[in-house]
């Protein structure tokens, strides 16, 4: 079982469904297909074919959602929302509350910006509430939701929306933000803390060249101020770094080290740039960064802390989608949890090794999951359970539970879309009509454009905050 062979994909131009093949070439895994109208297309989907084969054993059978919202008509991936062909429930729901942003980043998979009035949307509180209700109906007790955009912090009702999520009993409510409002509005971080929000802070690196290429300007000062305000307010923060080939691969180590040293930061999410929306025109699907490349870069830049086998695939989705690790840390040293607990033994569903303790497996499944973020209450609880099973004395479990989380998540675009893999996706865009569209389908098949066109500007567009005087 090397993970190679036939699958289906789409034509990146007309998006018609095509037979496709996962093949190994020069040690990498490529997705190839031919559109009768537009010709052949190839894209790299994993940078290390050996590792790709090796990780296929981290694949947990899918779970049923409580509800499916759409019926089979055109076939996968054109019936999303979730349709009967989908093989997984949703671990993480994403709600994009607006399309407007206070930045105009050259790289933006959501194609957001300052000038979206007239061809974007800003949802009402009622809409977001009904979307949250749809999520609860589908999942029963969803554990994790992220409000995103656009730039959700500039939505005038963002605090009410976040509160609405918390009021529905969702333990991990994340705000995906560029941090500008956090930096400029001193009341914002305390307001988030009062609601109990986890901040998912865009943070791509320190170098000016990186930031100009990705965000259009240098934002270091605002990011640092945002983090300072989060620290003061007692908010926990995950740094979210988009990583692009030939741009900021060399900054992944420094980002992790910075996160480990910063008191507010509890984890780092690395996302190879998905070539959806706006991206660098020179981006080449055969030279795309993938999870194995990011893992290699982290290990090469921090060899005193990491080896590649510290990054264990998340077994809920396809094993090449997301790899993660947790680590004990104290601001200066760090030891990955897999060095102390045989995580692989618990999350390998194929080799069928004996599982010593089913409670520990369940806890590890909850940790190695799209619904997890370092420092969140459910994660702390599960780390305590793991610590307990490793004979760590009770009074020290609190330390063990303070695990730093590092995630490497490769989202698919229309060049890399592997439909078989998509069927196990557990990250969904919740859209205003209550459909839950797998994230990578949303960005590659045309759903984003469709939702944007039909949703329209319903609550009057983005409203800025008042800058403190």
């Amino acid at each position, binding site marked *: 079982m090397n993970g190679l062979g036939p699958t289906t994909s789409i034509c990146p131009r007309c998006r018609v469904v095509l037979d496709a093949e996962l093949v190994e070439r020069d040690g990498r895994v490529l997705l190839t297909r031919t559109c009768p109208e537009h010709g052949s297309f190839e894209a790299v989907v994993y940078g290390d074919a050996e590792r790709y084969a090796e990780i296929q054993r981290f694949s947990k059978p899918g779970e049923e959602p409580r509800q499916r919202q759409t019926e089979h008509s055109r076939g996968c991936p054109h019936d999303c929302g979730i349709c009967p062909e989908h093989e997984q429930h949703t671990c993480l729901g994403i709600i994009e509350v607006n399309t407007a942003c206070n930045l105009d980043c050259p790289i933006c998979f959501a194609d957001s910006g300052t000038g979206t009035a007239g061809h974007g949307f800003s949802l009402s509180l009622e809409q977001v509430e009904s979307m949250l209700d749809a999520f609860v109906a589908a999942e029963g007790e969803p554990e994790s939701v992220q409000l995103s955009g656009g730039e959700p912090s500039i939505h005038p009702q963002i605090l009410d929306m976040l509160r609405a999520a918390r009021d529905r009993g969702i333990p991990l409510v994340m705000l995906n933000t560029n941090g500008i409002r956090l930096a400029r509005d001193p009341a914002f971080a305390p307001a988030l803390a009062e609601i109990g929000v986890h901040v998912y802070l865009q943070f791509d690196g320190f170098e000016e060249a990186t930031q100009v290429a990705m965000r259009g300007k240098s934002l270091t000062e605002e990011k640092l101020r945002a983090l300072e305000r989060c620290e003061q307010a007692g908010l926990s923060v995950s740094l979210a770094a988009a990583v692009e080939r030939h741009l900021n691969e060399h900054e992944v180590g420094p980002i992790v080290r910075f996160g480990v040293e910063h008191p507010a930061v509890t984890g780092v999410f690395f996302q190879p740039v998905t070539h959806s929306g706006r991206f660098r025109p020179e981006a080449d699907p055969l030279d795309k960064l993938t999870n194995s490349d990011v893992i290699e870069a982290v290990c090469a830049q921090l060899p005193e802390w990491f080896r590649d086998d510290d990054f264990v695939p998340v077994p809920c989705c396809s094993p090449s989608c997301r790899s993660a690790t947790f680590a004990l840390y104290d601001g200066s040293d*760090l030891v990955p949890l897999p060095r102390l607990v045989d995580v692989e033994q618990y999350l390998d569903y194929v080799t069928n090794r004996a599982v010593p303790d089913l409670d520990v497996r369940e806890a590890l499944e909850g940790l190695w999951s799209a619904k997890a973020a370092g420092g969140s209450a459910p994660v702390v609880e599960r780390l305590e359970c793991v610590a307990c099973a490793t004979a760590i004395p009770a009074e020290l479990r609190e330390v063990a539970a303070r695990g730093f989380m590092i995630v490497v998540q490769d989202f698919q675009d229309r060049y890399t879309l592997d439909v078989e893999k998509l069927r196990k996706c557990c990250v969904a865009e919740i859209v205003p009509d209550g459909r839950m569209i797998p994230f990578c389908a949303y960005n590659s098949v045309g759903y984003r454009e469709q939702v944007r066109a039909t949703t329209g500007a319903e609550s009057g567009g983005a409203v800025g905050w008042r800058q403190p005087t």
Partner: protein
Amino acid sequence: MAAADLKASCAAAYAHPGVRWLLGGELHPGGPATTRRALELAGLRPGQRMLDVASGSGASALLAAGELGATAVGVEYGEEAVASARDAAAAAGLGDRVEFASGDAEALPVEDGSFDVVLCECSLCTFPDKRRAVEEMRRALRPGGRLALTDVVAEQDRLPAELRGGLATIACVGEALSAEGYERLLADAGFEPIVAESRDADAARLAERVSDRLRGARLLGLGALAELPLPLEEAIAMVGLAREAIADGSLGYAIFGAARQ
């Protein structure tokens, strides 16, 4: 440290649950894979008799009996270890082909010429009188019988002072010999060398694991991890030095195969 004290403290350290946790159940570099390789080089066959000198938890004797069909005897200085090895043999259903005895490697409680193979893993370097121990192993072997010795290999004059003598002896480093040193010791005791195989990668992996676990223990605040042979910070520093030495080739691990002439 007096010879008897050293033997006792070595045996006690390796029986300690904290130390076993640090080593992740792998009490010598390479674990069972290296044991298998050593016994392969010694040509142990089903039905033959094998003696394991310093048999510890008994894992290698059980491997020789369970996987390779030998009859095995383990001799171990620590009496508690002997008792738990006996339990392990019974639990594995190998009680009829494996026995353990408490005893000193320098005066083995076995008859002359009664074994086809003698195994001694990662322990000779801790024995105060190595010449005597090797002579005892030779005495236990039948003529033509083979010795599989695995041990830490060190070029003492290249090691930092912290890794020489004292506590480093318990960690199998302080009194380890060079490859030539082991070969000369064996030759002087009447062995004919067959093979020397470097297992430095095993040593590097084990040292990394011990370092990870010590640092993990520090991060957890387990500084008071009861009765570790030395304070956590010192242990971390010492393992760091050992890893550097392994990287520069002055410290390593090897299998030596030899035959009784």
